[in-house]
């Protein structure tokens, strides 16, 4: 099995703007469809936070040809899945099935994306599920620290400052008509990407996708550019108190590089050193291994179409928050001030390039990789070039990325846990 590239991925642009990518894989009789539409929380107003995610979930609650019960009766009777999920920039969708059931899942997917009916009773049930989830979130230290972090790190006018799933007060106010209007105003083929990976021949897959979506004429929201996000120049800190908890969660971070930033891969390597490699990188080694302060202490750089966050995440005993913070800041300072040694850099690069076969083992993994190549215009030969792109990164570039995006003395810090003792 070779690494996917231009020689075995077929890319077709339909007249209505949809980009279809197909890669055959006949190792087992299953097929995965994965894609996204250009609509999301970006297109909702702050007072309607949660609208895009609510709308995306509501699509599966009933369509012109498939009432809610029928959608799931059909899918579950063949062990297949169809899902839609609202994000910030896009709304993602996907299917997984045996190849014999691909016509069925595509029929359902098409109806879900093109002919949702937003039945009132189903919308109310879904609202109840969303509101209960928001009640659970209010008592979840990890999720509350995450929420507070976004509010601290991004300006209030930025889409990233608002919760994707919304708030009790906004979700309570969203009506069935709000959802239907949001759908009508922004679901359409332009900017839509569909990837098919599996035991289906390319011509058949292309014909099936074109048959399903080729005549779709939906609308699209005009988008203003994202508001500027300036670098954080001071310490911003917020504590969310949740009585009765035994562990405190910490999220410390910054607005980070978009996936298309020239230094994204430099930042990616830097983050691998900081909080991924082996057992959670330097952060794991210091906070967990050397000091035993936390079960988890790691970092992630999100990338994405905009300035997604670069975050350190740790869960610690409430009495150890200060000590953990000292260690986390020391590691950030170290990676900003000292070049990574050649040996450590070589280890991290070997990990990043060497783990590609594992990421491409399953059809889901291949579909994800192809979707990313298309989404960020990386080129279909990106995976072939990947190792050399990583290997040419120097310690200087890693340090420059750290200095550009991180700062041990200026960051957004959200802490959620029980009240301080004493």
């Amino acid at each position, binding site marked *: 099995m070779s690494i996917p590239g231009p020689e075995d991925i077929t890319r077709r642009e339909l007249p209505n703007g949809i980009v279809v990518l197909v890669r055959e894989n006949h190792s087992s009789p299953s097929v995965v469809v994965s894609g996204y539409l250009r609509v999301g929380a970006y297109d909702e107003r702050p007072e309607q936070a949660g609208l895009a995610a609510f709308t995306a979930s509501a699509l599966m609650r009933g369509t012109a040809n498939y009432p809610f019960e029928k959608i799931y009766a059909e899918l579950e009777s063949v062990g297949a*899945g169809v899902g839609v999920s609202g994000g910030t920039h896009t709304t993602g969708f996907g299917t997984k099935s045996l190849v014999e059931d691909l016509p069925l899942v595509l029929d359902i997917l098409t109806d879900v994306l093109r002919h949702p009916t937003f039945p009132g009773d189903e919308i109310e049930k879904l609202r109840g599920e969303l509101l209960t989830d928001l009640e659970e979130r209010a008592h979840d230290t990890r999720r509350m620290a995450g929420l507070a972090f976004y509010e601290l790190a991004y300006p209030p006018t930025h889409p990233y400052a608002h919760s994707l799933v919304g708030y009790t007060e906004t979700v309570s106010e969203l009506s069935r008509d709000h959802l239907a209007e949001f759908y009508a105003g922004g679901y359409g083929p332009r900017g839509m990407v569909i990837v098919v990976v599996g035991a289906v021949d390319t011509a058949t897959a292309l014909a099936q996708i074109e048959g399903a979506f080729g005549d779709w004429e939906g609308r699209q929201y005009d988008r203003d550019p994202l508001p500027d996000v300036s670098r954080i120049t001071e310490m911003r800190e917020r504590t969310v108190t949740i009585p009765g908890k035994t562990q405190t969660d910490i999220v410390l971070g910054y607005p980070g590089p978009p996936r298309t930033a020239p230094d994204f891969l430099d930042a990616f390597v830097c983050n691998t050193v900081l909080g991924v490699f082996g057992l959670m990188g330097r952060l794991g080694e210091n906070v967990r291994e050397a000091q035993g302060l936390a079960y988890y202490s790691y970092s992630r750089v999100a990338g994405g179409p905009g300035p997604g966050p670069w975050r350190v995440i740790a869960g610690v005993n409430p009495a150890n928050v200060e000590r953990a913070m000292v260690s986390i800041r020391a590691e950030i300072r170290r990676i900003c001030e000292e070049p990574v040694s050649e040996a450590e850099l070589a280890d991290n690069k070997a990990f990043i390039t060497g783990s590609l076969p594992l990421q491409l083992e399953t059809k889901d993994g291949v579909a994800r990789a192809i979707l990313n190549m298309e989404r960020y215009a990386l080129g279909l030969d990106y995976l072939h070039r990947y190792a050399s792109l990583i290997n040419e990164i120097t310690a200087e570039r890693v340090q420059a990325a750290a200095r550009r995006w991180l700062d041990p003395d200026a960051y957004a810090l959200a802490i959620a846990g029980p009240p301080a003792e004493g």
Partner: protein
Amino acid sequence: MIKMSQAYKTQLPNGLTVLVKEAHAAPVASFWVWYRVGSRNEYTGITGISHWVEHMLFKGTPTFSKGAAEKAIAREGGMFNGMTAYDFTTYFATLPANRIGLALRIEADRMVNSVLALDEVTAERNVIISERQGSENDPDFLLNEELMAAAFRVHPYGTDTIGHMCDLETMTCEQLYAHYRTYYAPHNALAVAVGDFDGDEMLRLIEQHFGSIPNDLDIPAVNAVEPPQRGERQVFVEGEGNVAYLQMVFRTPPVHDPDFFALTALDAALTGASGLTFFGGGLTNKSSRLYRTLVASGLATAISGSLIPTVDPFVYNLSAVVRTGHTPAEVLEALDAELSRLATEPVTQEELTKAIKHAKAQFVYSSESVTGQALWLGYSEIFADYSWFEDYITNLSAVTVEDVQRAAQKYLKRSNRTVGWYMPENGA
């Protein structure tokens, strides 16, 4: 030459059971070593010890100093982890196939040479306590822990694998080392390799690395037998939060009992077919009976069922998240009505057919991942035999509507269950 596109099982002279399967869909391989030790082998005073020992096996040997093994695996682009459950402790690495030999070296070495130094044990105590405290943040964990303690009053399955806090605070380095030396031996272990390699060559490599490890220890037997349950038990947990949870467990037969597959089919009808994976399958269950009764009706926001195969008889578990504005009592009433309905509206052939087709699809999906395949081969060998996994669809297909009906009557009765309520302090 042995054909190993199916799993091939053998045993080395020192007692190590070996399972090898070739899979050539992708250039990767997964290697696992399973030990027949977990919280099933523990008692008050040393609860959580198996899980803690698992952590300690990442702290180094004279050959691979602390951190060296995970770094070596990472340098090859691999994935490396361990996990502990009731019946087993397992360690695995998945790597590009031509690097899999490294995983064999590491596992053979730490089967006997782990150091468990005092300072490392001391530091890890805080990590383990932190792991437990993170779990305690979750109402689900708090409820499940109390519920299982009520469901099992003799058998160690009543204690969560993480262990009691007082034991985590007091266990000694000597106790941890003794546990390691007692249970880590080839005749108490199982090596599993699945991937893009030559099967004969893999067998030879396993013999080379593990063949000379001695097996001079007696493995203590677990003699605990949970007495019959004589009546329904209920547990109430009060805690922080705004959301209530309802959970119940029914005592179930051993995995070898033919009723086990009937219960598997029953679970599929009640809460949707399970995903055949530890790592979550992302499956929906919205056409299942209990989803319709509890979630579609607006009483709950989620319902799930699980029937975990285990060495000793275990439980069938149903868990519901109560929708805001409703009470666990309402959910329980509706759930009881649905279970009673099984008597008059038995599970149908159509529901059985659905469960079988579902399982077939799951097997196709799982064949894409060498890690998933190795996990299931090893796991089923722990509680039964690897053929349990390979014969899964055959056994499920043999279940009749009558089998399911009989199993429902026999096991899903009130006198055989323990019900747990999580009542939030700030609840509606």
